[in-house]
């Protein structure tokens, strides 16, 4: 969902666990670059180490500073900015300067709606357009073979003609089930997990326009 084909720079704040950083690096490689800002010193160090270990250190610059106060340390360089911080609205101005003068896209991830509300206001204030908040939920299904019992309605042997469930006809057209044994119907079903991740966060996208 990102406009970059080849990016010259991509700012990201909240390096975090590094899995998103790795996904972004993979996307901008080999000609792009990721600039990432992490305010927690321990984590910034750990991220740098990981990038070295994975041989991608030439594709990423990690800066240890507070993006809300000090910005990204780069300007007019990014095609896109991704924010994953507690108060993204404080970083919108910095994000705008990090983006190329000719425009770009921003995406902010926040778990709470109040963060989204403030971020949207800030985006509007800084002249971003096409502000759009989305939520995407992944629903995973287990594939199971289910057996359902045919109820015993006491059907008399001579009573096969009555309206009813013709369980003796295995090639029942349109029937998703197959009778394996007398009295049950088997079928494949995609069963949702009992508990699923109900929310990770809201994604707010916006465009920095030319003017």
């Amino acid at each position: 969902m990102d406009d970059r084909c080849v990016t010259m720079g991509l700012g990201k704040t909240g390096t975090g666990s590094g899995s998103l950083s790795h996904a972004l690096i993979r996307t901008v490689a080999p000609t792009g670059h990721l600039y990432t800002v992490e305010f927690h010193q321990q984590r910034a160090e750990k991220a740098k180490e990981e990038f070295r270990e994975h041989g991608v250190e030439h594709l990423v610059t990690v800066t240890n500073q507070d993006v809300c106060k000090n910005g990204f340390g780069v300007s007019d360089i990014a095609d896109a900015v991704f924010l994953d911080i507690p108060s993204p609205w404080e970083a919108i101005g910095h994000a705008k300067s990090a983006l190329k003068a000719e425009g770009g896209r921003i995406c902010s991830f926040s778990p709470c709606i109040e963060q989204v509300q403030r971020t949207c206001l800030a985006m509007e204030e800084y002249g971003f357009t096409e502000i759009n908040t989305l939520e995407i939920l992944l629903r995973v299904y287990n594939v199971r073979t289910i057996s359902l019992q045919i109820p015993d309605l006491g059907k008399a042997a001579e009573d096969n003609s009555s309206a009813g469930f013709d369980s003796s006809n295995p090639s029942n057209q349109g029937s998703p089930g197959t009778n394996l044994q007398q009295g049950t119907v088997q079928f494949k079903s995609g069963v949702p997990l009992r508990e699923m991740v109900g929310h990770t966060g809201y994604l707010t996208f916006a465009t920095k326009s030319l003017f």
Partner: protein
Amino acid sequence: MAAERGLSSRICEGDCAVLKRGDVFKAVPVLRQRKIVFEKQGFYLDNAIGHVYGTTFEVTSDGNLQPKRQVEETTTETKEAGTDNRNIVDDGKSQKLTHDDIKALKDKGIKGQEIVQQLIENSTTFRDKTEFAQDKYIKKKKKKYEAVITIVKPSTRILSTMYYAREPGKIIHLRYDTLAQMLTLGNVRAGNKMIVMETCAGLVLGAVMERMGGYGSIIQMYPGGGPIRAATSCFGFPKAFFNNLHEFPLSKVDSLLCGTLSMETLPSEPEDTALTEEETNGLVDEKQTSVQGTEEESSAETAMEINQTEEQETMDINAEDAEFKENKERENKENVREKQRKQWERMKKLTEAAALLREKNADGLLVASKFHPTPLLLSLLEFVAPSRPFVVYCQYKEPLLECYTKLRERGGVVNLKLSETWLRSYQVLPDRSHPKLTMSGGGGYLLSGITVVLDKGKSDSSNLEALKMEEPSSKRCKVQDLCC
């Protein structure tokens, strides 16, 4: 009756009550001197008897309940939140209180709420945590050290929530919002004549009974030996509610439909009864037919506290029996007569239920069973009057697709709708509102529709046409909406 069903009636010995701690529910019988274990805490309900439902109790150190006037919230003023967690380094040493310290506090009889407060004061990192993290911390600790229990009166809302959380398998994963949909789509209301076929421990039956409030009649169709009503009995309905509750065995449905069911001639007196082989066959033993009896039977189906009571009662009865050993002979005679009388009553009830079904004028049909829905629907719809709603629940979507197709082929139904509900719970807190982080993956599927007069002489070709018409179903549904 209104008072009896109000929220604030008193907790009486022998009631079925629901314990509530946070979001956790458990149905228990109210008995004296019986230890209850709930959320890893053991206590006695004796002191709760006489209090009104809805009262919150604290568990004292000797395992008794003590009414708690006001549920104080942990004061938010003590909180001094950090703006982020950049300064927190996890070294596992942030809590200065040791396990021994905490145990000492408990032994001194210090209440849970105070322990939590002490834990907060002795945490070196608490003040640096964000407000969000602080709340999480408090909740975790509160849950561990505070023992506050509310005793509530059972209801569909509470029992369906409890079953879905504790024993979803018992109610074939029928989620409470799906159950609510069933009641609405099925137009369940006082005065109706409803057919209910469920294998949800009697929860759906209970919900229907609650909604009907004792007005109208219900015929419960049951598979096997007798209806299961473990959940129904948890509602604590007044006896009168059971006067118009009938049951009919699934295994007799086809013979009833074919007119081969031979029990119309009810013997005039119990003693005269000489049941034919055919009639007794397939009938269950007495424990399983009367309402009282089924409650006993069904309690064996549930893992809840409630079954322990029943067992105890049974034991007491046995003990009494032992006292009357010498009168065995006379008793045997009486037993035979008693048995005959019960059999006669059973026959009478069955005949009544059959007669009700035979009128083919039920106002609605609810199905929520572990069986394949198609054969149930095709048979049970015969008993429903035209222009009445029916709703079928199934845990899986696929059988309802087939059921939909078969119903279209059969005809006599319009407005068929296959649906599912998504249920999202929200956390609404100042500056921290969002959907809850976990949600139920699925609440099952419903197929609903409305009966119309089934033209029995309808040719196969017109049925086929109905089948063909199925394809642009969004358009057709609109037409149907106009029809009914």
